């Protein structure tokens, strides 16, 4: 049985060594200083940190890189050891007959990928089986000739294996297993060696003049860079995950057909209409009705949120006595903390029926409508607009208010003629951010805007139901009948992609406006 060292033991070992390094490093720095601490370039504890970091960081980095590298290595290794004559790699003549050469190639490659995957799956299952203490490797060697017990036992233990086990598969899996074990062991030994080396080197570096503080700061900066890179990489990851399906969709459906299409009627979502390879029903996936509904609702929402939010902000920052402020601010914050689904329910059960009762069923046939969703979304955005505007109004220098009041202007004149013009760029920024939230908002519109599965043209009636980009994404992804590779689902990626760019554009715009405003008064 090959030697294994569990990864958690390695991690504990390195951590303990680093802690010891800290204590020893500090002690050594103190002894080097010989009582005159001020003769050291860096503080003793910084020397301690330096030893600890040089023990742990390179070793941890090695472990992280090794685990990525070993995954790649085991893929390459598996590919290199599989026997090309294995029956799993062959295509029956009945399948290949009449297929063009290129198509056969593709299918063979797919076959091969599948085989590699099942070998790795089997290997993982055996690993799990042994780790659960059910058998040793020797037992498994004995079952080599008879797969039935092995397969049955693995499944019984809850291990997942996709394909049925064959001789070639098991051979490969067992070879892969010892290969992986060897790679892992090498990596772990290397990590230990590296941490000990770092520990010794760190201790040895301690002299009066050694600039431990600067080194430690460099480590810290490196870590901060690493952390921010992760955020950037996540964005890039999300973007690329939606970009490729989107491009595939544009290629299939046509970019302009999508962007300027006036009808939205995905096959998978239209009841009773089969999606046909035989052409019986072809999805209509036009973007126009969706963006229209989205912008219409956002417009109504801003119509509500901007006057209310801005007035609240002006009152709070310019006129409110402190006790009123103490009451209104928390109330606005509570409003901001309500989950959007609650707003959605409020829209559906309260606002919608109320509006219908007021305007009548001829104009408003359903309780769901542009106004229902827009008004409630506006309420949701009031605290957002007011707290952002409050910030920018408060940032207007007091000197400016004084200047105006000192000239004998009234507080109202001061607000309208001096403070609002000064805060305007920031307020516009707040409104743009609110618009971007309104466009991306989902729960309220899912419940309150209407759930038509297909629409044609643009609804002008503010009391009519509309569809929005986000509601259609939800509907198609949760809708029955659409397979994940159907064009409807690809269209959803295109919707998400477009939505991403619309909100990204708005946010960038808001940022620019706000940044410009900052330049002026800092």
């Amino acid at each position, binding site marked *: 049985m090959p030697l294994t060292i569990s990864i958690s033991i390695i991690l504990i070992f390195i951590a303990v060594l680093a802690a010891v390094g800290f204590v020893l490093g500090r002690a050594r720095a103190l002894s080097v200083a010989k009582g005159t601490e001020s003769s050291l370039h860096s503080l003793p504890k910084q020397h301690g940190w330096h030893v600890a970091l040089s023990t742990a960081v390179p070793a941890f980095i090695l472990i992280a890189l090794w685990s990525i590298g070993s995954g790649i290595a085991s893929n390459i290794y598996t590919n290199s050891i599989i026997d090309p004559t294995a029956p799993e790699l062959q295509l029956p003549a009945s399948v290949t007959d009449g297929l063009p050469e290129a198509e056969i190639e593709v299918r063979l490659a797919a076959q091969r990928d599948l085989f590699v995957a099942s070998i790795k799956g089997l290997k993982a299952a055996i690993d799990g089986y042994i780790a659960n203490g059910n058998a040793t490797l020797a037992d498994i060697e004995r079952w080599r000739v008879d797969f039935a017990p092995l397969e049955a036992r693995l499944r019984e233990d809850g291990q997942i294996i996709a394909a049925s086990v064959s001789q070639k598969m098991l051979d490969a899996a067992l070879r892969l297993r010892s290969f992986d074990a060897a790679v892992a062991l090498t990596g772990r030994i290397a990590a230990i060696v590296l941490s000990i080396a770092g520990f010794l080197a760190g201790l040895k570096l301690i002299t009066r003049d050694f600039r431990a503080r600067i080194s430690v700061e460099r480590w810290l900066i490196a870590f901060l860079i690493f952390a921010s890179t992760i955020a950037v990489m996540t964005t890039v990851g999300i973007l690329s995950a939606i970009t490729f399906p989107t491009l595939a969709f544009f290629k299939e459906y046509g970019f302009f057909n999508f962007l300027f299409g006036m009808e939205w009627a995905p096959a998978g979502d239209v009841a009773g209409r089969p999606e046909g390879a035989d052409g019986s029903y072809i999805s209509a996936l036009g973007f126009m009705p969706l963006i229209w509904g989205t912008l219409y609702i956002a417009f109504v929402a801003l119509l509500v949120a901007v006057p209310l939010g801005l007035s609240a902000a002006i009152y709070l920052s310019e006129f409110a006595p402190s006790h009123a402020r103490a009451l209104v601010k928390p109330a606005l914050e509570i409003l901001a903390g309500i989950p959007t689904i609650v707003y959605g329910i409020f829209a559906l059960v309260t606002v919608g029926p109320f509006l219908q009762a007021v305007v009548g069923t001829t104009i408003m046939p359903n309780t769901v409508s542009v106004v229902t969703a827009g008004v409630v979304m506006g309420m949701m955005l009031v605290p957002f607009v007011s707290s952002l505007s409050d910030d920018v109004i408060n940032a207007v220098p007091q000197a400016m208010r004084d200047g105006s009041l000192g000239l*004998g202007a009234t507080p109202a004149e001061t607000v309208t*003629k*001096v403070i609002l013009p000064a805060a305007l760029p920031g307020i516009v920024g707040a409104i743009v951010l609110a618009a971007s939230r309104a466009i991306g908002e989902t729960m309220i519109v899912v419940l309150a805007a209407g759930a038509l599965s297909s629409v044609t043209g643009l609804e002008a009636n503010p009391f009519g139901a509309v569809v929005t980009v986000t509601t259609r994404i939800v509907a198609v992804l949760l809708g029955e009948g659409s397979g994940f590779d159907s064009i409807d689902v690809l269209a959803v990626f295109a919707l998400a992609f477009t939505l991403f760019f619309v909100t990204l554009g708005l946010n960038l715009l808001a940022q620019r406006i706000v940044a410009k405003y900052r330049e002026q008064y800092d």
Partner: protein
Amino acid sequence: METKVNNMQIDTRIVGDDAIKIAARDVQVYYGDTHAIKDVNVDILDKTVTAFIGPSGCGKSTFLRCLNRMNDTISIARIEGDIRIDGEDIYDRRVDPVQLRAKVGMVFQKPNPFPKSIYENVAYGPRIHGLARSKADLDVIVEQSLRRAALWDEVKDRLDAPGTGLSGGQQQRAVHRARGLQPATLEILLMDEPCSALDPIATAQVEELIDELRSNFSVVIVTHSMQQAARVSQKTAFFHLGHLVEFDETSKIFTNPEDPRTESYITGRIG
């Protein structure tokens, strides 16, 4: 206190009208827990320039701001005592601060141009006081005001450019001259370090302006320049750590102060 009132009376040299314009009694100002102005009593005369001097942070601006209720805008500021202008308590409930400020104007330590064009900045005061009946009127007022600030040639081609684009000194000059065109209601002008950003020539111009204003108004000026105080004022008040240490004829303060702290300050040992 009495001795000082007597001092005012014997001043016949410059003071034409020795009527008391502002009378402050036992004024205290607190910013939260900070006691910024302590027991200040002072009488400011009409048609006189009064200078406030004292080390930084001693409360000159704070006291000045009490005189037209600008401290109302600071929520943590609390004022006690009695301040009367022409015998009327300005902290009375019935007093409208807006009306008060039309009577007691203020030029601030920072010129704080508004986020508007140069033209609109100069026109702001005349507009809110309805000094101009038409756009043409206003054009004339703005031009006059900028000419008197000797700024007209510098800015006449960019009247529509933002006021923030002027240099600190240009801003101060524009503000002072705009102040020169007062609403008819103005009686007192409070100036907080009006020359802090000005070159010697512009400073001389402002001092000239103050001298002109003296014939019609009561002027209070805060300054860090003893020379300026000596040149423009007839009365000088020395503040120290929130106290009004000494208030007297300017000539007396600078030649023969009574309080040792005043002497230390003017000879450069405090501050």
